[in-house]
């Protein structure tokens, strides 16, 4: 099944189409102590055939962002503002019912824990075929044929017999493949992968990432990869948005962000990776822990852990502003605006000298 996405020129020689554009997204959680803002003014873009990584510690709002994109937030969470523009349609402005039309054909999501994400009482074939039954009105028999096709596509051996098995009869890696198959069933333009490999062991992780890459290239999908794993970001993603306490603190192409971080948090994260450490030397880490959602300070969200904190950081929250591509290059002024680098730090320009 070839989609319109295939007409886009392959390769990365030119700017890819923007599939998803998130502007100023905010999500509130109602708790019995009052309402807290878990995601606050998040901006990013995902392009066809590319992977955007949302990177951050647990609790920073990256999973919440993913659920907001897919429209499957918990009932205590509210979309508090912003736009989620997918192929020209603002999903945030749609009613839940209108949104169902997009769930599947336009947008798929892969969860972290495949065992709980699959319904234990139905065969995988039934669950894989459901999208076809809902959106294309296929019969149960036709949907099963499609399900077998899907299982082949994601590399599950003996799909003809395994299609009638139940989720608990599969291994963790196979379940994750089934989950991915479900997400890509209708060749969506956008695939959200919420920590798809966290629950798997390392060898299987690599296979799953490889599968995602293959599917992305086949379908020219835009992939939003949510992860806390710097290595995965470095290997798989084209661009990255670093999140901290519900905010995007830095974004840009992975190679540039990782080689030349412009936010002290990104810098701290990168320095905490033990790459060239002498035996016996202390590993670096970021002191302290992220603020509670009830208690996010009014200035910069990172002020309590930042080594460069100044008066202005406590008084005023820095906005996510473009920074020039690479200060280490001599021709930095001439870098094209896309893909833009941006950081939310009052001292982003000074950072590489610090």
């Amino acid at each position, binding site marked *: 099944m070839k989609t319109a996405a295939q007409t886009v020129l392959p390769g990365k020689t030119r700017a890819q189409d923007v599939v998803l554009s998130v502007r100023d997204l905010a999500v509130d959680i109602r708790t019995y102590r009052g309402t807290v803002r878990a995601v606050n003014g998040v901006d990013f873009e995902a392009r066809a055939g590319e992977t955007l990584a949302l990177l951050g510690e647990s609790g920073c709002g990256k999973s919440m962002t993913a*659920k907001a994109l*897919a*429209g*499957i937030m*918990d*009932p205590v969470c509210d979309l508090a503002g912003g736009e989620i523009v997918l192929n020209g349609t603002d999903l945030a402005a749609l009613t839940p*019912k209108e949104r*169902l*039309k*997009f*769930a*599947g*054909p336009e*947008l*798929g*999501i892969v*969860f972290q*824990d495949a065992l*709980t*994400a*699959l*319904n*234990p*009482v*139905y*065969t995988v074939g039934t669950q894989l075929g*459901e*999208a076809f039954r*809902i*959106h294309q009105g296929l019969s149960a028999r036709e949907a099963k044929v499609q399900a077998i096709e899907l299982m082949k596509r994601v590399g599950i051996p003996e799909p003809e017999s395994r299609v009638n*098995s*139940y989720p*608990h*009869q599969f291994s963790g890696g196979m379940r994750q493949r089934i*989950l991915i198959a*479900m*997400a890509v*069933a209708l060749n969506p333009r956008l695939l959200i992968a919420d920590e798809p490999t966290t629950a798997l062991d390392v060898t299987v992780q690599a296979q799953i990432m490889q599968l995602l890459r293959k599917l992305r290239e086949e379908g020219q999908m835009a992939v939003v990869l949510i992860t806390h794993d710097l290595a995965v970001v470095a290997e798989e993603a084209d661009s990255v948005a670093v999140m901290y306490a519900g905010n995007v603190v830095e974004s840009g192409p992975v190679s540039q962000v990782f080689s030349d971080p412009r936010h002290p948090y990104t810098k701290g994260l990168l320095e905490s990776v033990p790459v060239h450490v002498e035996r016996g030397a202390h590993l670096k880490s970021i002191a302290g822990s992220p603020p509670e959602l009830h208690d996010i300070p009014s200035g910069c969200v990172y002020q309590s852990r930042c080594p460069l904190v100044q008066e202005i950081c406590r008084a005023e929250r820095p906005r996510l502003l473009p920074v020039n591509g690479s200060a280490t290059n001599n021709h930095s002024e001439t870098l094209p605006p896309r893909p833009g680098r941006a950081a939310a730090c009052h001292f982003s320009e000074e950072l590489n000298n610090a």
Partner: protein
Amino acid sequence: MLIYLRKRIISSALPLAVVIVGVFALARMTGNPASLYLPLNATQQMRDDFTARNGLDQPLLVQMADYFGGVLKLDFGQSLRTGQDAAAMALRAFPATLQLAATTMVLAVVLALLVGCWAALKPNGVADRISSFISMAAASIPDFWLAIVGIWVFAITLGWLPTSGVSGAGAWVLPIATLLLRPFGVLVQIVRGSMVSALSEPYIKLARSRGAGELRVVTHHALRNAAAPALTVAGDLTVGLVNGAVVVETIFGWPGIGKLMIDSILQRDFAVLQAAVLLTAVAIFALNILIDMGYALLDARVRPVTAKA
């Protein structure tokens, strides 16, 4: 499936056996029926004759052996009260109770599924509040009192329904309404609770992310998962229905097995009591097997691995 079934039957048969023995032992402890059936001025000779004729002078173990031998031949002896065959009496009373219980359970399950789903769709919404309060009230009202209120309002004050008896459709309304109360109240809570937790499972989110609408999510994905706990509870409720039947049949003069049991106990009519209890126990036993089978059909995880995994 057959292996699974055989295992379940064996494990359910133990309670059945214990119940039979237990009832036998307890019934024998209620005292000598001779003092109940013979005139007050009966001589010791008459008492001994009566005891010997009914085999009550044998050691307890011999009595029990006789009893088990009888059970295998479906021979429970004769009623001390009426002289009729005890098994026949129990079998004759059984349909009346079965009709009552079956109607009640079907109504309870259907109503509980409807109301429970409705409440689960909007947790803490108005529907949920109202229905959980109603079901809570239902689980809090003593059945005998509800029966009396029903009689007071509909039979005495309004005169719409008969106070007791089995004649006409009207006679069914109050007994069923009374009997319905508890299973409905319990089941609706179970359905609601398991629907709420099923609806918050990740696989429901995933179904939504596939574009499944609200109705499909409820009927296809959540209900089947929620049905399993409701089914297990339905087994316990059927046992409880016997409790309700005793009260309801006593109040409304319903000629069922509950009334028969109470009457037999009060009259120390061992044979009938044993026949009635054994019949009830077998019915509960059969029902539990049916429920286990239904459970295995609903949820593949409890099924033993038959195909290659």
